[in-house]
């Protein structure tokens, strides 16, 4: 690296405006014109995300953005431009650029007959050239190749098998990224936050993949456009709806069924998509002869809907929403939980170089527990939280070597942590309401991605967030021993406490040669909203709370270094990524914390710091008969919290040193394909008893320091078989069968280990292990028309 390049990096960090007119390859004086447009799928009109647009003669390129838009500002001249994307046929277009040109394109999906033609990836060497690391992007086509469980491939089940990601446990869709907590992942669906993405039992997430187009997981290098969670961003985009013809797809299975309908409304300027899914485990309960079991209700449903409208080449509008609920009920009790989101987005092109998106989003998460005994007081406990936010995002494609992104967003949070009401009470109990929690946050960000020389590109970002805890609300004041002194009640709108935080981001990509590159990144992130959950698995009974007078924002500094190498003409992608995270204001809970319905929740918190580090190895094959990936991750995470474990360092619950995933799909023939996953993960840290005492007539354990021991290792294998129909041209109805078995060899993976008094023998204690799913089969018929 010579001095010129170093000087350019320094200038770029200090003076973003000096980037204007930055050009590494061509004569700055030549006149530049814009080549821009939107890239779509020819079959259904869906915009394609991350299509590589490469200008051969200049050896430069860009990728299409989330809305399928690309923009290149290049000098006048004749060029050959390659448009390539995984699973689609590449189009090479010759253009004679003599003025601002709009070039919209539709790519044809690659079919099996076209095997001889080079089937390219989203630019075969995208993982080498892109300036993002710690990211895994999975298009719906890649996700569909992961073995299906319960008949459909679940998005979060696929995420849980990526390097650096660990499932939080059997029976939940929650996950931990690079040693972080389950509440440190920001999950967004069309830009609205989803707080709890799990359905009952954890086999299904709230994402119905018939309605999903793309999913990207950012594990380290979280873009400056988002903030608010320390460990990851999972960005999920819904399909826009087939704008060419009416189409449908769905599946009928043992446990659940789903249906999706999409199509144009009027012309191809407007399209819609509606997806619904419901499980019916309770149908089987109705067959039971036991009256108590018969009356049980157990189901969940999801509903996704979206309308997209293109006013003209410069304006598009999207309105989308999601609604879902899990319900369990019997005649004595019931509980239900669910999310809903609603977003309205407007894409506007100020010029071929300036793309903007404005959105208004709403999301809520709620749950409800009730006890309805025949005689006696009934109790109902409700929890509700909602976000309303506004976002304005701009992308300025200054030159192909330089893209500037900036924007503003603001969010209003409102949480109602608990409302308990009584029915049939003989004493007139008042409703017990925990005070509301309200907060307002807004942020400005700026981020620039630039190519500094032939081999070096860099990314710099800065985000300024202001987070205020506001009224109405009640804040308890504590002394140094966390005893309540008094409380202060704030009226609506009054600011209780504000935090301003600056989050810088930096990334460098050094291209060693055609097949390999070296990347480095640094990101500082903050988290202002976290979960008060004493459990290690995500539970539907999540309690969120915000930073404020008693709680400082959590912070994380993440350093990452990676080496990326492609083999066999880009058919195999390999990478090694090392990461180190240093976190401050880490939150944990005191021993035997009382979190349920506790308005003085903040007195149960204890604070300290933590760190995580590790290495991720990945080998991925995206083309050919055999596709899939193998990954190994070494990951450690520990923390020191004042007031817990006698202030001594201890392993965090997500310290799982060795994780090994094999995910594969093999096309045996045109009609038959088989898939398998194998997962191996070191056991979770656990606290064991090292002694016992007798009080009050029972034996009580005496424990070691926290998390000194480990549960047995977790491993399982799933398999699936897909039978496709004979390939017939002009086929109207396409149906395939999918059979799967979850946990094929039935390994008893411990979900919990408890030490209990043996009820048969006094004085005797024993260890018990609870495990969940073994040999779970499923059969589903999936169709498309």
């Amino acid at each position: 690296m010579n001095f010129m390049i170093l000087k350019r990096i320094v200038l770029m960090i200090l003076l973003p405006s000096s980037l204007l007119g930055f050009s590494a390859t061509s004569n700055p004086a030549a006149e530049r014109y814009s080549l821009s447009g939107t890239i779509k799928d020819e079959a259904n009109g869906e915009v394609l995300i991350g299509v590589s647009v490469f200008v051969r003669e200049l050896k430069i390129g860009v990728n299409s953005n989330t809305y399928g838009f690309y923009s290149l500002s290049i000098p006048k001249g004749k060029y050959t431009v390659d448009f390539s994307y995984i699973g689609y046929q590449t189009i090479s277009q010759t253009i004679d650029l003599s003025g601002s040109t709009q070039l919209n394109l539709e790519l044809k999906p690659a079919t099996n007959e076209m095997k001889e033609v080079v089937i390219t990836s989203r630019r075969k060497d995208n993982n080498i050239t892109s300036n993002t690391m710690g990211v895994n992007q999975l298009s719906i086509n890649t996700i569909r190749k992961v073995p299906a469980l319960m008949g459909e491939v679940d998005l979060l089940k696929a995420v849980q098998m990526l390097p650096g990601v660990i499932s939080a446990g059997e029976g939940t869709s929650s996950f931990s990224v690079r040693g972080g907590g389950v509440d440190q992942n920001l999950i967004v669906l069309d830009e609205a936050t989803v707080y709890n993405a799990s359905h009952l039992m954890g086999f299904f997430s709230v994402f119905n993949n018939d309605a999903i187009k793309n999913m990207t997981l950012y594990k380290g290098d979280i873009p400056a456009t988002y903030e608010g969670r320390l460990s990851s961003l999972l960005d999920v985009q819904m399909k826009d709806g087939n704008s060419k013809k009416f189409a449908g797809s769905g599946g009928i299975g043992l446990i659940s069924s789903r249906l999706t309908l999409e199509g144009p409304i009027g012309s191809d300027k407007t399209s819609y998509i509606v997806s619904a899914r419901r499980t019916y485990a309770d149908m089987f309960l109705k067959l039971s002869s036991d009256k108590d079991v018969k009356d049980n209700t157990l189901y969940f449903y999801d509903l996704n809907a979206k309308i997209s409208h293109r006013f003209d080449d410069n304006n598009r509008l999207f309105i989308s929403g999601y609604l879902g609920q899990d319900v369990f009920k019997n005649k004595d009790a019931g509980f239900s939980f669910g999310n809903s989101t609603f977003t309205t987005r407007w894409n506007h092109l100020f010029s071929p170089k300036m793309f903007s998106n404005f959105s208004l989003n709403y999301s809520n998460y709620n749950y409800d527990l009730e006890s309805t005994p025949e005689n006696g007081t009934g109790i109902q406990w409700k929890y509700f939280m909602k976000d309303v936010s506004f976002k304005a995002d701009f992308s300025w494609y200054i030159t192909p070597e330089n893209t500037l992104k900036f924007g503003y967003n603001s969010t209003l949070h409102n949480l109602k942590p608990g409302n308990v009401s009584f029915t049939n009470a003989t004493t007139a109990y008042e409703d017990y309401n925990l005070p509301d929690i309200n907060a307002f946050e807004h942020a400005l960000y700026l981020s620039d991605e630039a190519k500094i020389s032939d081999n070096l590109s860099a990314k710099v970002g800065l985000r300024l967030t202001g987070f205020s805890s506001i009224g109405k609300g009640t804040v308890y004041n504590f002394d140094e021993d966390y005893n309540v002194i008094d409380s202060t009640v704030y009226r609506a709108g009054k600011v209780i406490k504000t935090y301003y935080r600056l989050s810088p981001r930096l990334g460098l990509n050094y291209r060693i040669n055609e097949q390999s590159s070296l990347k480095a990144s640094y990101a500082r992130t903050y988290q202002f909203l976290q979960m008060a959950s004493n459990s290690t698995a995500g539970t539907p009974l999540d309690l969120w709370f915000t930073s404020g007078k008693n709680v400082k924002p959590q912070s994380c500094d993440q350093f990452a270094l990676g080496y990326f190498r492609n083999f066999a003409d880009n058919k195999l992608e390999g990478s090694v990524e090392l990461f180190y995270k240093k976190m401050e204001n880490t939150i944990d809970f005191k021993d035997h914390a009382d979190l349920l319905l506790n308005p003085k929740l903040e007195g149960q918190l204890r604070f300290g710091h933590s760190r995580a580090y590790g290495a991720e190895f990945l080998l991925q094959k995206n083309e050919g008969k055999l596709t899939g990936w193998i990954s190994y991750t070494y990951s450690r995470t520990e923390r020191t919290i004042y007031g817990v474990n006698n202030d001594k360092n201890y392993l965090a619950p997500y310290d799982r040193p060795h994780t090994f995933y094999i995910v594969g799909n093999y096309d045996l023939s045109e009609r038959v394909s088989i898939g398998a996953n194998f997962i191996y993960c070191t056991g979770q840290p656990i606290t064991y008893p090292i002694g016992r005492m007798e009080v009050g007539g029972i034996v009580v354990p005496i424990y070691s320091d926290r998390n000194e021991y480990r549960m047995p290792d977790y491993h399982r294998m799933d398999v699936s078989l897909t039978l496709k129909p004979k390939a017939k041209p002009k086929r109207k109805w396409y149906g395939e069968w999918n059979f799967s078995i979850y946990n094929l060899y039935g390994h008893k993976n411990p979900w919990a280990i408890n030490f209990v008094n043996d009820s048969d023998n006094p004085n005797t204690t024993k260890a018990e292990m609870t495990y969940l799913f073994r040999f779970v089969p499923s059969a589903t018929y999936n169709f498309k028309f």
Partner: protein
Amino acid sequence: MRLYKYIYIALASLAFVSCTEDIDIKLDSIAPELVVDGVINTDTTTHTIYLKETADYFSNKAAEVISGATVTLSDGTSSITLTENSDKKGAYETPSNYFGVVGKTYTLTISNVDINADGVKEEFQATSTIPTKYQVDKISVNKERSFGSDRWLVNVWMQDPPDERNYYLIKAYRNDSLVTDSIQLWGIASDEIFKGYYLDNVRMISLEDIPSQRLKNNDKVTLEVSGISEDYMYFINDVILEYWGRNPLFGGQPANVRTNIQQTVPEGEEQTAHGYFSAYSTARASTVYTEEE
């Protein structure tokens, strides 16, 4: 009542289908430590303080008792020495006419012991103040069927003292013998939602359909309602949480049950005593259970 919180834990877990089996785990061990289990209340009777030792987790026998210790009890003005029961070693008793007084602070001192067998005598201390005594006006017992089985609900009529935070310990007797004999069967509550209210036919405890608890026609039922300190209530809560075990959905991290026993001699030693010494006030009311047709 705090009790309802546990209802939610139970019913939400119903949604899960799981299997539980015994497993074999090798555990580490520690040298024996002091365990104090002692209560003084306002009844005029013999009050007992039990001193035991800790043991290995899978020792699977009754705990070793600590014999020959000097145990004294002071009420702030005068002090008595408890007598070890010659038939029941490790049980240190007050005279049978001893009673606790509301408002007084009692200090328990244990000396003349060498638990860690290092040749140096140790001394331990704990204090507890007796809270307000409740007045129970009357109780009733009714049978109910829910979650598929019979239960007997014991309801109370009493006034929660206004102007102060009150904590309750609830036990039940059937024909004058204690039904809720082990700590996980005790009821605990705090008056957060009913401070200052008159509790009108409010359920305090329920008896299950098991041999030690079920009721027959004409059984005498006594409800014992004691005023306890907040810390003692949390101690009982900690023990109950540890008793029931935990599942990953709701349980927190395992943690040691709290204690109010402090080691005072030698000074500066790591605090290793366990258990609780509590002084509280007790009130009772009885009724005869009549089975409805």
